[in-house]
């Protein structure tokens, strides 16, 4: 069905809300932002055409209030809602409520979301589509006895996983029979707490797998294509940290086979719009279906850079009922892209979150650098949401040059006032294993367990000299306040001194 959009409600915040506003604006669509009280001064409110308050800071009272968001879509005359990632993006009930109210949900139909959203049901769908998956159960385990039976059948080590899972919650590796009972109990209760469903299943544990995922796009006319893979093996506690495209471990033939499997699964589920099929890849180039993410991914920019396409534009066009403007054979990959997820956290102090005011922001630029940033100098990173500040992405003809370019850009990047993981990226990018693409999902945890010497000082004396000159210029300015200039204010002087003395 052909629809014409004029106005899109962006049901999200942070960098992805800004990225969606930009994509809409480029297609001539106006945007409605929604915001919580913690986000009144956020960039997405500043940049949208319209902005409506949702409620207090907690997500449950704001960005997760599907009822309120639908009501705002109706009252502002929005034709469609883009959910971004997180929040309501994989909530089939919300998608269904949109369908019922005649406001287009930019994503797959709620039926496809339900079929692929549960990991156990998705495993059944994978079987039906004839795609490889890890050995194990395809339904929730009814009892510990059933768990013992399945585990014995496939052999240890095994993984317990929550059917509704995500982000590593309700997940336990079990290396032998004796550990199963307690792991089963704790995985169930963690899943129950996190997702409101204690359904867990069990699968064979793949040793040192790579995380490889296939981006797909499907229109409402039965066309579905794959846009190549992303490698997301660099993870900490099951959270992606660095993503890249293409994967150094995926040959053209493997890419084709994984892409075909992903497309088969999407078609069998009646899938439309953008989606990602995640796989584990073992060292023998066997791939195993993991799960489907029925939304745009955080890491979609690396696919955009190597394919030359714009996934948000394509999502909007598909949602308007347009056919895909290309066929599988038109998709070619060129060059290499790597993304760093810049977080407000302190890698030198147990990765503690570091919310607070960004007092200084110097951002990189120039050739091959894209930044999808959600913050600005002066913004106070709130406590209430995840700590992602920005995505820094480098594109270059080769993987080695993309790494060199990222290192160059990280050298230009300064975020002051809060702690960030920028230093962690410098460490990973300099690591010999990462540079040789010897990575798997355990790579980063192993790296972090190693002692690492602090980075070499650029100059033994420059920091001390700089500190002294900052101090000297401060006192000079105070003395010379008769001739103020826009560069150095008396107030700033006082502030800097306080900073220096505290």
């Amino acid at each position, binding site marked *: 069905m052909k629809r014409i959009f004029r106005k899109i409600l962006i049901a999200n915040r942070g960098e992805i809300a800004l990225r969606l506003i930009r994509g809409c604006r480029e297609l001539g669509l106006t945007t409605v932002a929604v915001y919580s009280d913690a986000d009144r001064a956020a960039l997405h409110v500043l940049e949208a055409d319209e902005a409506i308050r949702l409620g207090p800071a907690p997500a449950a009272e704001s960005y997760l209030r599907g009822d309120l968001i639908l009501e705002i879509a109706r009252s502002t005359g929005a034709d469609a809602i883009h959910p971004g990632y997180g929040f309501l993006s994989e909530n089939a009930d919300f998608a269904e409520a949109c369908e019922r109210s005649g406001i287009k949900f930019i994503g797959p139909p709620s039926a496809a979301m339900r079929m692929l959203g549960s990991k156990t049901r998705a495993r059944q769908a994978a079987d039906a589509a004839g795609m490889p998956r890890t050995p194990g159960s395809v339904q929730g385990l009814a009892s510990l006895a059933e768990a013992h039976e399945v585990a014995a059948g496939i052999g240890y080590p095994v993984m317990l996983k929550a059917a509704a899972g995500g982000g590593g919650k309700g997940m336990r590796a079990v290396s032998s029979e004796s550990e199963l009972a307690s792991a089963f109990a704790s995985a169930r209760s963690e899943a129950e707490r996190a997702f409101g469903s204690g359904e867990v299943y069990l699968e064979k544990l793949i040793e040192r797998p790579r995380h490889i995922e296939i981006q797909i796009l499907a229109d409402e006319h039965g066309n579905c294509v794959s846009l190549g893979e992303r490698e997301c093996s660099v993870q900490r506690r099951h959270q992606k940290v660095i993503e890249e495209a293409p994967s150094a471990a995926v040959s053209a033939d493997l890419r084709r086979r994984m892409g075909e499997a992903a497309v088969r699964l999407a078609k069998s589920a009646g899938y439309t719009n953008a989606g990602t099929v995640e796989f584990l890849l073992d060292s023998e180039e066997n791939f195993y279906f993991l799960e489907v993410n029925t939304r745009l991914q955080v890491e979609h920019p690396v696919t955009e850079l190597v394919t030359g396409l714009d996934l948000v534009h394509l999502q909007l066009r598909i949602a308007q009922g347009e056919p895909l403007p290309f066929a599988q054979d038109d998709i070619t990959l060129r060059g290499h892209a790597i993304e760093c997820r810049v977080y*407000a956290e*302190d890698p030198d*102090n*147990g*990765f*503690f*979150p*570091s*919310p*607070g*005011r960004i*007092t*200084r922001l*110097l951002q990189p630029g120039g050739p091959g650098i894209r930044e999808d940033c959600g913050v600005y100098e002066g913004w106070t990173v709130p*406590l*209430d*949401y*995840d*700590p992602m500040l920005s995505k820094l992405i480098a594109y270059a003809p080769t993987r080695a040059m993309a790494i060199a370019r990222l290192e160059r850009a*990280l*050298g230009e990047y*300064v975020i*002051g*006032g*809060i702690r960030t993981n920028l*230093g962690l990226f*410098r460490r990973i990018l300099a690591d010999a294993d990462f540079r040789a693409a010897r990575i798997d999902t355990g790579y980063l945890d192993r790296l972090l367990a190693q002692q690492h010497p*602090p*980075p070499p*000082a*650029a*100059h033994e*004396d*420059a*920091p*001390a*000299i*700089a*500190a*002294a*000159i*900052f*101090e*000297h*210029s401060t*006192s*000079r300015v105070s003395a010379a306040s008769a001739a103020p200039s826009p*560069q*150095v*204010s008396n107030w*700033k002087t006082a*502030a*800097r001194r*306080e*900073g*220096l*003395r*505290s």
Partner: protein
Amino acid sequence: MKIELEIDGRLRKLDLHPQDNGSYTVELDGRSFAVDAHLLRPGILSLLIEGRAFRCVLEHGPAEPAIHLETTRIIYRIEDPRSLKSRRAHLGAADGPRPIKAPMPGRVVRLLAAAGDQVEANQGILVIEAMKMQNELKAPKAGRVSGLRVAPGDTVSAGDVLAVIE
């Protein structure tokens, strides 16, 4: 102008002699440098030392000031040459009671130790949640837990002393 500062764990003594146009002669630990310094904006300094160029960015956040220089972030502390007290207090605090401070604002989720407990260094003392993540705060040294002032559910601010290890 004489300046004494603690930077990267070292005490350094500098004497700045301003020349024309933002250049300085710097005496540092007995050596002498010609330095050209230009403040681009408050807190952003272009520093030329014997031809080498540095971008130095001053960070003044809630904690100690720091300099961002190339890929490193270096914390420093200006010492008042007339007062040795603060320096002694700062450098000599290794043996006494050590506080456990909240590294960021958040909510207390769980206590892992009780007041009076004898704990090991790096043993978890309490868990606070911020930004959708749970974070364990650990004992900075072996000792006895005292002054445990919070309970699960409490909201804490960055820098609050939550407990002391004696």
